[in-house]
Structure formats: structure tokens, C-alpha cells
């Protein structure tokens, strides 16, 4: 039973705009095992959110998606629109960055919360309400019966995100995709939400994908981490290896450039240059080469994901060579 819940193979996403074609995601591979938590980490424009939006097929009509997205043995990209609708909010749920803009301001919390159950005919309205109220209580919202009829503006950001999580889990999905779930929240609330997510994930046994720009958050919550740069996957490693055994020069630079809470403090080392924007012209070789200190001739050729160890892959000639030799 080592079938991954989600297996993304060679995913490509292009946006066709007035000013030209934007290659947002270029050949991403990714596996999410049953009951595991996978983090997708990257800076803005790295394509991490686009990847997951492509998996959910929630991108605008201008997006061209290529590759294969296997979910429980079914290729989501080959499903009809109607079949895909049956998966969304039922088998795969998604929560987003800013709960206050991702909820309809003029509909009550409760009405919005039970929608997944109603859309998929999983419960009658009365039954849905009962289950939603109970879940609201379980995830730490006091007086859920009354809170059910509140409007989003009457909730704090942290409470809204709790409610969003509750809404996502109401239909007992196999996979939860959390796209920067704590970025818009206050620092102290962030811990609460992450803790709740982790707890619920363990209780329900569902798989979870956490998209975040914060390496520390990913390290805290996830089992495995995928690092994206310029629309490509540059490294995949277990999270306990993140700080000590990273192999890609980009990830090494990134880890070094993060200020630490203990240890020496001096001038901060950093990666020179700008991150590769999605609309920029892509080099034919390694996408990180022009910012990389270890660049050599071979980097003119694009490196594939090289296996370094168990659950450890890197897209770098130098790092790959050190191991394979």
C-alpha cells in the first residue's frame, strides 16, 4: 500500500497573456504519501501556488496545463469538468491565504461552511448544519450554535481560518491543500493554526500539502519538503535534513541567509541577484546558474532531479556528482 495519494508528473503550466507567454511551472514532479505532510517551499514567483492550483484545476481559463496529476490512481487532468467538480471539496479540499477575502462577506459563516456537503449531496441541510456546528466546536470556536449564523466580518482572522479548515474537513477529504494558510494572520495566531492543522491531519489520517514561503514553518509542520525555484523543483528532502544536509546551492544560500534565533550573529550572507521571475526568459541550462557561486561548464545544460539518498533528490550537477562518485 505504498501508493501515493497524489502523484504529480512533469507538470507544466503556461499563461497566455497579451504581452506573451508566461511559463509559470516547468516540469514539476511531486509525491504525497498517505497520511503524510508535504511542504512546498519557494519564494514569490517560484510557482508553488500555481502548482497546487493546477492540481485543483482552479486556474483561469487562460492557463495551459500539461503533464499528469494522479490522484488515487485517476489522472485529474483528463477528467471532465463535471467529474473534476465532484473531486473538489469532497476528495480534495483547499484552504487559502487570507480567510477574510476568501469568504463571501454577505453570506453567513454557517451557510458557506455547509456548502461542500450540499454541493456533493453528502447530507441534508439540517444534517449538514448539525455536523458543521459540532465541528466548529471541536476546532475551538466557542458557542458554535450562535456563531454559525454570524457573518465573516464578525470573526477574527484566526477564527475565520479555523472555520475555513473546518469547512475543508467537513466532507472528510483524502487530501488537504493549504496554500499559505498563516501568511495573512498575526504571528501568535499562526502557531495556533499550524498546531490545529497538524492535529487534525494526524487525527483524520489525511494527507496534507502545505504551500509556504516560510522555511521554518515547513520545517516545523512537514515530513518532507519540496523546494521550488523559478517554476522548477530544485530539491526534495525530508524536513529533518533541511538545516544540515541540503544539497542545492540555492537552498544552501537560502538557509544561510535566514537570521537565526541563536548562535553567532555577524554580517548576513546572502544570495546575490534577483529571483527568476515567471515572465523572464528562461535559460536553457540550470535556472539558478546566474546566481550560483559553484557554477561550472556543465550548468549550461539543465540538470534533472538526481537521487541523492532515500527521499532526497536534487536538481544540481555539482551536488549530484558529489554523491554519485
Amino acid at each position, binding site marked *: 500500500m505504498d501508493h501515493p495519494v497524489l502523484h504529480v508528473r512533469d507538470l507544466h503550466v503556461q499563461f497566455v497573456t497579451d504581452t506573451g507567454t508566461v511559463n509559470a511551472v516547468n516540469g514539476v514532479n511531486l509525491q504525497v504519501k498517505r497520511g503524510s505532510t508535504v511542504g512546498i517551499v519557494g*519564494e*514569490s514567483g517560484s510557482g508553488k501556488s500555481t502548482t497546487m492550483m493546477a492540481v485543483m484545476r482552479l486556474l483561469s481559463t487562460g492557463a495551459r496545463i500539461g503533464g499528469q496529476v494522479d490522484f488515487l490512481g485517476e489522472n485529474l487532468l483528463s477528467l471532465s469538468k463535471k467529474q473534476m467538480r465532484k473531486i473538489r471539496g469532497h476528495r480534495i479540499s483547499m484552504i487559502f491565504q487570507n480567510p477574510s477575502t476568501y469568504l463571501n462577506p454577505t453570506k453567513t459563516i454557517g451557510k458557506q461552511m455547509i456548502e461542500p456537503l450540499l454541493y456533493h449531496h453528502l447530507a441534508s441541510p439540517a444534517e449538514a448544519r448539525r455536523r458543521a456546528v459540532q465541528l466548529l466546536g471541536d476546532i*475551538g*470556536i*466557542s458557542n458554535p450554535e450562535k456563531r454559525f449564523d454570524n457573518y465573516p466580518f464578525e470573526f*477574527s482572522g*484566526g*477564527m475565520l481560518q*479555523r472555520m475555513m479548515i473546518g469547512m475543508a474537513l467537513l466532507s472528510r477529504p483524502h487530501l488537504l491543500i493549504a496554500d499559505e494558510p498563516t501568511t495573512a494572520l*498575526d*504571528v*501568535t*495566531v*499562526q*502557531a*495556533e493554526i*499550524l*498546531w490545529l492543522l*497538524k492535529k487534525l491531519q494526524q487525527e483524520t489520517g489525511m494527507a496534507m500539502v502545505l504551500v509556504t*514561503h*516560510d*522555511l*521554518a*514553518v515547513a*520545517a*516545523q*509542520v512537514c515530513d518532507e519538503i519540496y523546494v521550488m525555484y523559478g517554476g522548477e523543483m530544485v530539491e526534495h528532502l525530508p524536513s529533518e535534513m*533541511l*538545516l*544540515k544536509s541540503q544539497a542545492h546551492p540555492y537552498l544552501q*544560500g*537560502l*538557509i544561510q*541567509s*535566514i*537570521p*537565526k*534565533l*541563536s*548562535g553567532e*550573529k555577524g*554580517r*548576513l*550572507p*546572502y*544570495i*546575490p541577484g*534577483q*529571483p527568476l*521571475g515567471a515572465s523572464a526568459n528562461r535559460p536553457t541550462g540550470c535556472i539558478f546558474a546566474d546566481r550560483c557561486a559553484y557554477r561550472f561548464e556543465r550548468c549550461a545544460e539543465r540538470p534533472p532531479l538526481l537521487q541523492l539518498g532515500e527521499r532526497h533528490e536534487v536538481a544540481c550537477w555539482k551536488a549530484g556528482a558529489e554523491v554519485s562518485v
Partner: protein
Amino acid sequence: MTDGAPRANPVPLAELKRMTKRFRSSGQEVVACRDINLQITKGESLGIVGESGSGKSTLIRILQLLIPPTEGQVYFEGTDLTRLSARRLRTFRKKIQFVAQDPYGSLFPNLTIGQNIAEPLEIHGVGDRRSRRELAAELMETVGLSLYNFHSFPHELSGGQQQRVAIARALALYPQMIVLDEAVSSLDVSIQAQILNLLQGLKEERELTYVFVSHNLAVIRLMCEQTAVMYLGRIVEQGETERLFTAPSHPYTRALISAIPAFTEDGVTPLGKSVQFVTGVSGSKQGGQGCAYHPRCPFATSRCREETPELRTLESAHQVACHYAETMADSVLQ
């Protein structure tokens, strides 16, 4: 430089004395800052941490007298800024500069990069057109911007470059102090490191003093010698950064440190351990009896509910507003 020697000039660079700020919004009074005493010594950058709504934005705006305090005084180099006329205040504005959170929003969208950087010089009538342009170009090099961008508009630059422009603009008048409001939090990690590195360098070169608001404790630790923790309009703990982070004496500081994910030398801080947040009792409750933090504090006693703790000095200028600060400091942070 001279370690251990008594300071010759005891006048602090900036000082807040018994400062209180109240706002009136839709008939209700909100106390944004309550009875704040704060000293900033030259060369000792100050970090301010706290949740949103803790009053840190208000505090730094009052420090620059962008908004007037309701009560109390604001001193800069010994002069009470609250008593100055608008004209005399202008000359002090040269010495304090501001870098805001959103670099794009803080730049003048209708002016070029060069004009943006020269703007403070023009406002204060420093030099002529030519010399202002020269200085602007020089500052662009200082902050690591290409002169190619001299005639660009802010919207053509990336976020990191925009923040460099904002920093260059803040440097134009050779200020003594720069107030940075979450100046790196909207930037990507690799860009954030570039800007922090730049700020570190400038601090050394130009003997700047920063007032650094951030929710990123590791950034504060890197940039600031002193740190103040704010909760609901009060400073609840203040002292040397290193000491405050290794031995926090206020339960709120401890909660903050454990709540914010960060890397340490050899790993990552554990998720939410030792945090007992009570949902629903968030920061909105104000006034009333006792310690403002007691509804969320796991160590609260009946004394905490009745008696408001004053900010008091522990050893070596470390100040805490907690009745049980000594016991807090003794128990090692997990």
C-alpha cells in the same frame, strides 16, 4: 567603542516620557499606547516586537511626531518635540527618517527613482538641482542600485529594489536615526537578507541608530542591541536583546518566542510547544483591573487579576512588567 567606561553624554538620542495616545473611533475610545517611557541611546538600535494592535505602529509614529501624543513628551537630542512649532519641527525631521513596510506604496509613484531619492533634499532646500541629482546618484550606488534605474518609475522596479530606493531616500539627509516599520517583512527571504546586509553595513558606516519594528524575532536579534516587547499598548519587557531572548522574564515574551517559527543554530523551534493560547480572548480587551495579559497567561494568579504590574527594573537595565518576573527568568525556556 570604549567598553565599560561610563558614558560621557547621558542625554539619550530619543526619549518618550509618560507618553499616552488615545484614539476616538465611532464614539469609543481606544488606548493605542499607555504610559510609555522609553529611551533610545545613540548607536543602540531598538527592536520593537508585538502582535498587531499592540501599539507598535502608533509608538513609532509618535516617536517621529507624525501624530501627536495625547499625553507626555517626545524628546530628540534633549529637545521636547511636542512643544516645537511646525517650522522648527521640520528641521528635526531631517534627523529622523522613516522606511515603511510597503516599499511601493511609500515611494512617490509620479516621480522617477532619482527624483524620489532627491525629494527630501528638495523639501529641505539642500543644495541646488545639480548637486541633489549627484547625491541621489551616489546614494543609488551606496544602496546597490544600478544607475540605469535613475529615470525609471517605482512601478518598474522589483520589491527589493523599491526598498533599496526607500532606504536611499532615508539616507539622503544624513539622519541620526532611521525608523523601519516591518521594512523587510514583505520581501522574499533571499532579498530580505540582501537588505538586512545593506542595513548592517550602513549602520556601521554612518553610525546610524535604528528603531526596527518586526514580527521576526531573529531579524530583531540580528539588527538591534535593545528590544522592547509591546502588549496592548504597553511595554511589558525591555532590555538587551540577547538577554531578553535567552532569558525572557515576561510570560508574553516567552509565548511570542515559542510561537514564532524560527531557525536556531541546530534546527527549528518546535511547533507551538508551551503555548497555551486561549481562543476568543484576543487582544481587544482593554482597561479593567490587573495585568492586561492575565486572561491569556498560564501563570496568572489572583494578584495578577487585581493589581496592574508596573514596568520595573531587574538587573542591568532589564525592565519587566510582571509580578513574577524573577521566577519566570529562573525557569529555563523550553
